[in-house]
């Protein structure tokens, strides 16, 4: 196969794969009256911005809540997982193997089951339908992954760097803060990106733990749209387009981190 031919095939395959994404964008610009046209309008010519206007009118609070939840989850995940990664990679206390094992297992527990347990606990503790409660629950998706990524990354930092710091009289905490963290930028970025994306995309915890809250994330915003038997598909798809922005930005800005994160979670190098 020649290379130009391969490029052509590659473009066609990508176009097929991304067709649903295109269709989402197309429908988001389609007029209500054209929504059930036969044949369907394949291109958003003389489209409408009605859908996006509806988003501005109705979905902004949801988007704001999602941003807040995403940011909170990132902070909590980093605070918990970076020190743990350092300990597992460089200080290696007894029980390191067992803890790594627990972290791997933790990632495999279905979210819906965690949600049920959280629901029972939150109900009695009175944190059901609160943003901090949801942040805490969302962080359970990212913390085990974060520890594993930080451990893997920090194992690659040369011991000489740490020894030099300790000869200079730096405490372990000082070493961690002033030596380890600054060189771990890539790991911090990877973990933050995924923690944000997972919190932003979470539906399971949102619907079980925040279904009746005053502040709900965008996933519930879309879900209510669909559930209300809303036939305004341009508004639903416009919200979906907006909800996809973080994922898209991530891919453009940090593509190599994304691929690294997917692989690191599964296969050891």
């Amino acid at each position, binding site marked *: 196969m020649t290379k130009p031919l391969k490029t052509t095939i590659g473009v066609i395959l990508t176009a097929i794969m991304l067709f649903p994404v295109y269709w989402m964008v197309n429908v988001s610009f389609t007029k209500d009256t054209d929504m059930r046209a036969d044949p369907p309008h394949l291109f958003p010519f003389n489209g409408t911005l009605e859908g996006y206007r509806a988003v501005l009118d109705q979905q902004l609070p949801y988007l704001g809540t999602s941003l807040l939840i995403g940011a909170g989850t990132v902070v909590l995940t980093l605070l918990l997982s970076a020190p743990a990664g350092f*300990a597992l990679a460089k200080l290696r206390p*007894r029980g390191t193997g067992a803890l790594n094992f627990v972290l791997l297992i933790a990632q*495999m*527990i279905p*979210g819906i089951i965690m949600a*049920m347990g959280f629901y029972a606990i939150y109900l*009695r503790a009175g944190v059901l339908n609160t943003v901090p409660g949801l942040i805490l629950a969302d962080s359970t998706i990212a913390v085990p992954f974060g520890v594993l990524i930080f451990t893997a990354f920090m194992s690659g930092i040369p011991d000489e760097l740490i020894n030099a710091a300790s000869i200079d009289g730096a405490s372990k905490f000082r070493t961690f803060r002033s030596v380890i963290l600054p060189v771990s930028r890539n790991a911090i970025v990877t973990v933050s990106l995924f923690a944000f994306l997972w919190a932003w995309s979470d539906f399971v915890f949102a619907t079980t733990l925040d279904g009746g809250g005053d502040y709900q994330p965008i996933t519930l915003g879309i879900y209510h749209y669909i559930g209300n038997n809303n036939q305004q598909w341009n508004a639903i798809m416009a919200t*979906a387009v907006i909800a996809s922005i973080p994922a898209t930005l991530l*891919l453009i800005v940090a593509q190599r981190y994304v691929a690294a994160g997917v692989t690191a979670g599964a*296969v050891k190098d």
Partner: protein
Amino acid sequence: MTSHVETLVRTRGSSRVRRARGQWAAWAFLAPVIIYLVAFYAYPLYRNLDLSLRHYTVRSFVQGDAPFSGVDNYKTVFSDPTFGPALLHTMVFTLVSIAFQFAIGLALAVFFTSHFKLSATLRALFLVPWLLPLIVSASTWSWMLNSDSGIVNYALSIFGVDQINWLTSPDWALTSVIIANIWIGIPFNLVILYSGLQGIPNDIYEAAALDGATGWQRFWRVTFPLLRPVSLITLLLGLVYTLKVFDLIWIMTKGGPTDASTTLATWSYRLSFGNLLPEFGPGAAVGNLLIIIALFFGLLYIRRQRRD
């Protein structure tokens, strides 16, 4: 001589002290995450186990004085007419999804290993379905599969296929959610298998080419066997991830019509949250069954990964 021994003793002693101090420091760094795992992983799981062993009503759920009922909830679940179909659908959903995700992911990974113009960009674009929030993918597929106005039925009608009620017919609901799930899972398989392919040294291919192997032979005789460890890990991980899929099915079909696309995950949710009268006990019981299945394959995965 003496001084030598002295220094030796002294350094040994101080290194032991340092080691002990290092242990303390290590546990100080680990303490937050350990407390976190106990409070927000172990405790919810314990609560879930407790839920499944008691007879709960809405009142006793709030007050927390539900009577212990042993394995009654599990018996209820096993004798429920939904149990058989839910288990079967979980298996079909998982196995069919994985088979297609893996095959398509592998084909694409092989395709992308040769560097042509735009190959890196196109490979990155393939990640999009995996990164989108599930609610976005699920609602987009719902509209594409809409019986009357969906683009899929329109495309099929060009080839003379009659209207298919993808989401509302019991014959097609499971197929519909599987199609959407395959689409979401391809990127994950592609990325991992691609990185596995990168690990196969080029000279092996050159040697095979010298021996006159065709492209097809090269794949089956060289690539496929050498990729076996990575493939196994991809499949096991895919299994664990697919077993727990809930959002996609719930958003597209709610497990319906009449259980046609109900899996253990959606059934568990419906029992606990989907009805006006929640059945927390049986819901938790179904959830625990799902954990056992997921952990079985999860442990296989970890064993496999350790061995490599």
